[in-house]
């Protein structure tokens, strides 16, 4: 009894002291519940037979107060690839053929983006919080200074195209929360993955408000022969070109010779 009471007292004292500062960052109630995050792997190696990878994101909620009765705890997990600028073109019919006409440059768009939630997205995270933390795909894409009319349609198209390619995923209900304390989800990284640091973010929400968050990095790197060839093509392009050419000529000559012997 005594340790628990001491703990509660300490928590109350701490939260009272921390509240004004914390409230500015993540809203009231912050600090009462925080996330301990685990990843099944913190690096992904792209080798020759790489065929995608599955990351298990799991964790626990650390709290110094009893579990609040209501509203229920929800968890949002995002995994995003490196952000790069893209250009979206729209085709229009000109003189009977379809031509790229208008273009909108999207300053930063993730090459991969997955959002997993423990419930329907709109009920898990409010619009304001989504805007503040850039959680959903449309919020994660940054497009500024678009001069074309109806630029929104271009952004939507970019999301639609990457969504169909499996590069952008919204996995509602994919996060399993147990006893309001433990959570886990699996995120499938596709085979056509680009290199870079993949940011993993976890948000704890109650009633659509973020009450705690944390983040971690997954290092996605080519290894072995893939790494060596990639570096060679960038550092010594002429050598790489000559290597490709030599292989091609040898292969052509080899096949021709082999076939001649087979026929004789």
């Amino acid at each position, binding site marked *: 009894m005594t340790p628990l009471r001491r703990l509660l007292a300490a928590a109350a004292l701490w939260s009272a002291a921390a509240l004004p500062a914390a409230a500015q960052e993540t809203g009231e109630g912050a600090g009462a519940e925080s996330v301990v995050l685990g990843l099944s792997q913190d690096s992904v190696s*792209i*080798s*020759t*037979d*790489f*065929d*995608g990878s599955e990351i298990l994101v799991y964790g626990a909620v650390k709290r110094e107060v009893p579990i609040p009765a209501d509203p229920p705890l929800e968890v949002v997990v995002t995994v995003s690839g490196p952000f*790069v*600028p*893209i*250009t*979206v*073109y*729209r*085709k*229009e*019919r000109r003189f009977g*053929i*379809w*031509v*790229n006409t208008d273009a909108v440059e999207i300053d930063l768009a993730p090459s991969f983006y997955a959002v997993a939630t423990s419930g329907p997205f709109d009920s898990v995270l409010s619009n304001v919080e989504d805007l503040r933390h850039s959680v959903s795909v449309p919020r994660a894409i940054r497009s500024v200074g678009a001069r074309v009319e109806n630029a929104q349609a*271009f952004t939507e*198209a*970019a999301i*639609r*195209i*990457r969504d169909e390619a499996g590069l952008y995923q919204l996995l509602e209900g994919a996060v399993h929360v147990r006893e309001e304390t433990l959570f886990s989800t699996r995120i499938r990284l596709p*085979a*056509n*993955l*680009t*290199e870079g640091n993949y940011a993993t973010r976890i948000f704890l929400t109650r009633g659509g408000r973020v009450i705690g968050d944390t983040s971690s990095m997954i290092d996605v790197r*080519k290894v072995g*022969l*893939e*790494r060596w*060839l*990639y570096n060679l*093509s*960038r550092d010594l*392009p*002429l050598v*790489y*070109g*000559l*290597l*490709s*050419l030599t*292989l*091609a*000529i040898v*292969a*052509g*000559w*080899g*096949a*021709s*010779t082999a*076939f*001649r012997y087979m026929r004789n």
Partner: protein
Amino acid sequence: MQLYLPIAEVSVSLFLLLGLGVMVGILSGMFGVGGGFLITPLLFFLGIPPAVAVATGANQIVASSVSAVLAHLRRKTVDLKMGTVLLVGGLGGSGVGVWLFNYLKEAGQVDLLVRLCYVVFLGIIGGLMLIESLRALLNAQKGKRGKRKSHGWVHGLPFTMRFRASGLYISAIPPLLVGAAVGVLAAIMGVGGGFIMVPAMIYLLGMPTKVVVGTSLFQIIFVTAFTTIMHAVTTQTVDIFLALALICGGVVGAQIGTALGSRLKAEQLRILLALLVCAVCVKLGLDLVIEPTELYVISQEGAPE
């Protein structure tokens, strides 16, 4: 079995790539075309970025052309002298072509122009070849022989050279011009240019079909080798894994193709090539005219799809 391509940064089925290589190799050996006009669009379809598809296609064509040329050399169906003259023109032309390509790229719309080039040239060549070869086939059936060689303006030009393997005694200017024109188009369209070269040699230079294929392949080796090195250095989009997978299929296919080609009659060969060229032309043409299901395209790092 999946293969992750280090430069293209996509994972593709190895067997699919091998199959594609075999198919294009057969065409290469049979018709003396590099197959670039087929392999490049097919690689787009597999999800390979266009810049990688074009550059790697060139590398693959080197291998299948070497394989096929060696087979043709043994059969003595390569006019090395004519090939060299064409090549001199070709390298000059592709230099101009690369400059033109970069100029068009700056101006935007290079993708559309490449496609239009394909449709126009494939359409003209395929159509003409089809008409001509059908006529030749009909004449042959009636027992008549078509004119073997036409003596026109081509034969009145200076700098005459003797091309023994082709049985020609003509000026060096027309082959140089043909080589240059093909070089320009090859650089713009990202192909070896065999499908333009072969008909040009038959109809413009009056070369016998027998040596046309080998000679075309001979000069394609050098033009595509030049393109490969240039892409590796400037755009850095040659994917060696992708090339190797295509090559492995391609070299086998080229041998099969050469064997098949020697069994078919020249007229039949021409009709088949004409039909193939027309089919690709129609497909590309329809793509331009029919409303696409997705009106938007994403382009990353300035490489429009």
